[in-house]
């Protein structure tokens, strides 16, 4: 019955009820028309909502449930605004009116009482889904209509203004020029003053409305409008009516009076022939009695008239037009606008030049973008959900393609969502509520790793939320190394709150083993299998730093007469002897001790001791030295330095042990001795260690330096 995918016409209903019987009865009642999702408590219900989002058309919600009750679910749905798009019908045997009231306050659409009546349940479910679908459709329709209207009005402006121009016999550019000049001047105005309270939107709307400034000329008789030569006074009086006629036309659009576009267009039509000194028409307004929109369009209109050729005059140059306006030859304008004109005079030719078709389209595109933006606000929730749904779809598609363990952890409610492949690999369900309490989950990652990972994620910041963590996961009966890459999610509130994380776990087991193998190769001596000098130095330094108060001893061992073994029996034999000695050393030391090959026939032992160093060293020496390997007599010289005598680091210990060895070598070999302070000053230029990999040494044994 659980259908995870929603086919085109089928609606998905989520039933949240702790009784399996009740869920089954409801599912049966709803029959085959719907896809049913089931959750057996509130937490699971919330996880389902989180996972399936707007796929879910309706929630049937019980009140009394373990983990999280129905009110808890409603609270979460409110918190995440799901309730705005997903209707909820509450189902309960609870008859108390306080319950019902609270449920309705939390946004449920309907209430159904037990015992269910099959017919009622069915009808209410269908009605609720239809109602919500209708609402969504209505919202979309309203948005569409607003867009249509704006679109039509801008089309209407275009058509009207062009009709005027055609009748006017003008170039067709006049309207565009006025538009551009208006916009250019307005931008300067708002930089200079805010006394007109103009917003960026006002600039756009006024510029658009400017196209209608001469719309009243439609009513002017053809012979007056296009009369070659100067108009008579009578004709001019007729001509002057166009401003009022245009305003009246706009006023006759009763249903659009609240539109800013219509409001500005009215001002522009009526008053774009008024002048600052009150000598304009039709109303003889003065100064700022004239709306700023009309003042600016008037200026733009005059400029374009001056620079255009008319039947009664040639086209003036830009410079000439500007100076004529500034000199007051075309009537008096607002001094502030004169300043603005001066400021932008140089920009005007370029702006008008750019007033090409492309420029216009670009501007229109911007307008459309602005309109779309407005609509987005209108249907934000639905659009956002659609986008989210798209993202979710993309995510699950890609997740299904990769063989990776991908996860998403949410703190409240505590839940872990796994990719399908990941869930299969881990042997966990795709949605796991309360993973901290899950035995299955805890069997996969050990608690220390889990908590340490959580701590690391908690200590990230919203600016730097990504964490890499290596640990072993127990999968398919074995521990395998994984690299967990996770991104913490932080809420946008102040201070930000940790809300969970997303991430993936990559199986790095084989590459890690390979690394370990390489590390082993790099740190070990190939012949004897003991660690090499560099690695020994590192580990000893670590031990010393780890517990500086401990008592430690370092011994350097040298195989006596080794050169003659090589010379007599060959290098193969020599290697066998070294391996033999290494094996003896391995057997003579305790678990925590360190044995290393320093180089050539020299070895090193590092150990920690409590009280009796003497007997420990004696024991080691006796196990290592003496006896024969085939015919070769095994004799070892050994120098020992302890932290009781030598106060210092690895280098110092090594040098002192080396010095003690030097003394042994010079006094007959085949025994060992301790470094004593009186021997020589530390760091004296004597050493028994061959220079094979020791730069600090000077060799003085019977073998020639190699």
């Amino acid at each position, binding site marked *: 019955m659980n259908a995870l995918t929603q086919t085109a016409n089928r609606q998905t209903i989520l039933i949240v009820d702790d*009784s399996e*019987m009740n869920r089954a*009865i409801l599912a049966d*009642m709803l029959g085959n028309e719907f896809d049913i999702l089931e959750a057996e408590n509130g937490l699971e219900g919330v996880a389902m909502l989180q996972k399936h989002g707007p796929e879910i058309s309706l929630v049937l919600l019980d009140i*009394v449930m373990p983990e999280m009750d129905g009110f808890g679910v409603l609270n979460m749905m409110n918190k995440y605004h799901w309730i705005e798009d997903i209707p909820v019908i509450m189902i309960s045997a609870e008859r108390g009116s306080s319950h019902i009231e609270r449920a309705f306050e939390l946004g449920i659409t309907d209430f159904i009482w*037990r*015992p269910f009546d099959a017919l009622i349940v069915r009808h209410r479910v269908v009605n609720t889904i239809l109602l919500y679908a209708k609402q969504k459709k209505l919202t979309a329709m309203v948005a569409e209509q607003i867009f249509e209207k704006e679109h039509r009005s801008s089309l209407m402006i275009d058509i009207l203004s062009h009709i005027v121009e055609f009748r006017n016999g003008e170039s067709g550019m006049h309207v565009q020029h006025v538009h551009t000049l208006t916009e250019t001047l307005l931008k300067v105005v708002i930089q200079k003053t805010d006394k007109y309270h103009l917003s960026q939107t006002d600039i756009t709307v006024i510029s658009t409305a400017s196209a209608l400034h001469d719309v009243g000329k439609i009513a002017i008789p053809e012979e007056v409008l296009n009369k070659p030569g100067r108009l008579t006074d009578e004709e001019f009086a007729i001509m002057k009516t166009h401003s009022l006629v245009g305003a009246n036309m706009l006023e006759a659009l009763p249903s659009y009076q609240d539109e800013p576009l219509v409001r500005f267009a009215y001002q522009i039509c009526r008053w774009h022939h008024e002048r600052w000194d009150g000598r304009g028409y039709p109303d003889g307004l003065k100064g700022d009695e004239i709306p700023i929109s009309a003042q600016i369009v008037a200026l733009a209109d005059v400029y374009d008239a001056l620079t255009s050729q008319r039947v009664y005059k040639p086209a003036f140059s830009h410079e000439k037009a500007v100076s004529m306006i500034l000199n007051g030859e075309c009537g008096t304008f607002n001094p502030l606008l004169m300043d603005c004109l001066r400021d932008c005079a140089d920009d005007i030719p370029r702006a008008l030049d750019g007033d090409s078709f492309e420029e216009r389209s670009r501007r229109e595109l911007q307008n459309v973008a602005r309109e779309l933006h407005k609509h987005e606000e209108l249907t934000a929730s639905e659009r956002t959900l659609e986008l989210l749904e798209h993202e979710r779809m993309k995510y699950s598609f890609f997740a299904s393609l990769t063989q990776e363990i991908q996860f998403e952890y949410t703190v409240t409610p505590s839940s872990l969502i796994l990719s399908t492949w990941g869930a299969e690999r881990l042997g966990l369900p795709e949605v796991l509520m309360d993973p901290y309490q899950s035995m299955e989950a805890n069997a996969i990652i050990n608690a220390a790793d889990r908590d340490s990972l959580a701590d690391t994620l908690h200590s990230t910041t919203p600016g730097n939320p990504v964490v890499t963590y290596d640990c072993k996961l127990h999968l398919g009966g074995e521990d395998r190394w994984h690299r967990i890459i996770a991104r913490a999610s932080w809420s946008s509130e102040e201070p930000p709150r940790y809300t969970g994380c997303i991430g993936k776990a990559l199986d790095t087991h084989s590459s890690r083993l390979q690394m370990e193998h390489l590390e082993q190769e790099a740190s070990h001596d190939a012949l004897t299998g003991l660690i090499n000098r560099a690695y020994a130095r590192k580990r000893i330094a670590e031990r010393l730093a780890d517990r500086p108060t401990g008592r430690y001893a370092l011994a350097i061992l040298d195989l006596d007469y080794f050169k003659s073994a090589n010379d007599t029996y060959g290098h193969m034999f020599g290697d066998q002897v070294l391996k033999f000695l290494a094996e003896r050393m391995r057997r003579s030391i305790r678990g925590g001790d360190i044995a290393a090959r320093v180089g050539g026939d020299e070895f090193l032992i590092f150990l920690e001791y409590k009280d009796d160093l003497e007997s420990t060293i004696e024991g080691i020496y006796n196990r290592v030295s003496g006896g024969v390997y085939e015919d070769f007599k095994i004799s070892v010289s050994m120098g020992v330095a302890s932290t009781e005598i030598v106060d210092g680091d690895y280098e110092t210990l090594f040098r002192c042990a080396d010095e003690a060895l030097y003394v042994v070598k010079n006094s007959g070999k085949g025994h060992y001795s301790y470094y004593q302070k009186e021997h020589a000053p530390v760091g004296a230029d004597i050493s028994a260690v061959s220079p094979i990999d020791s730069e600090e040494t000077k060799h003085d044994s019977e073998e020639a330096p190699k």
Partner: protein
Amino acid sequence: MTLQECYAAMGGNYDEVIGRLRSEKLVQKFVLKFLNDGSYQLLLDSLAAGDREEAFRAAHTIKGVCANLGFDVLLASSEALTEALRDGRPPQPGEADLIARVEADYARTRQAIQAYQEGAGG
């Protein structure tokens, strides 16, 4: 034994449930399913463990299922017990009687269904 006789034996309201669920097949399916519902066992277990909150939920679920299936006798006794357990109320005198009644009514309901199941041949 018919389903109607089964309802009579347990003290249920057959006509009412058929009126609501509108299909004898559906009713039959869920009546038989009632035998496997774990809520009753959960009620006993949580009462024994002293978990009154869980016991409330279990009693509440039984009540809801009985209401849906028209098991009127068990509905009445489970409803009384649900109210006694509501909001973590401490045990009142007479609660043992309420529990005993639920046990008796549950046994009666169960017997009736089992008899019907055998009679219905499976």
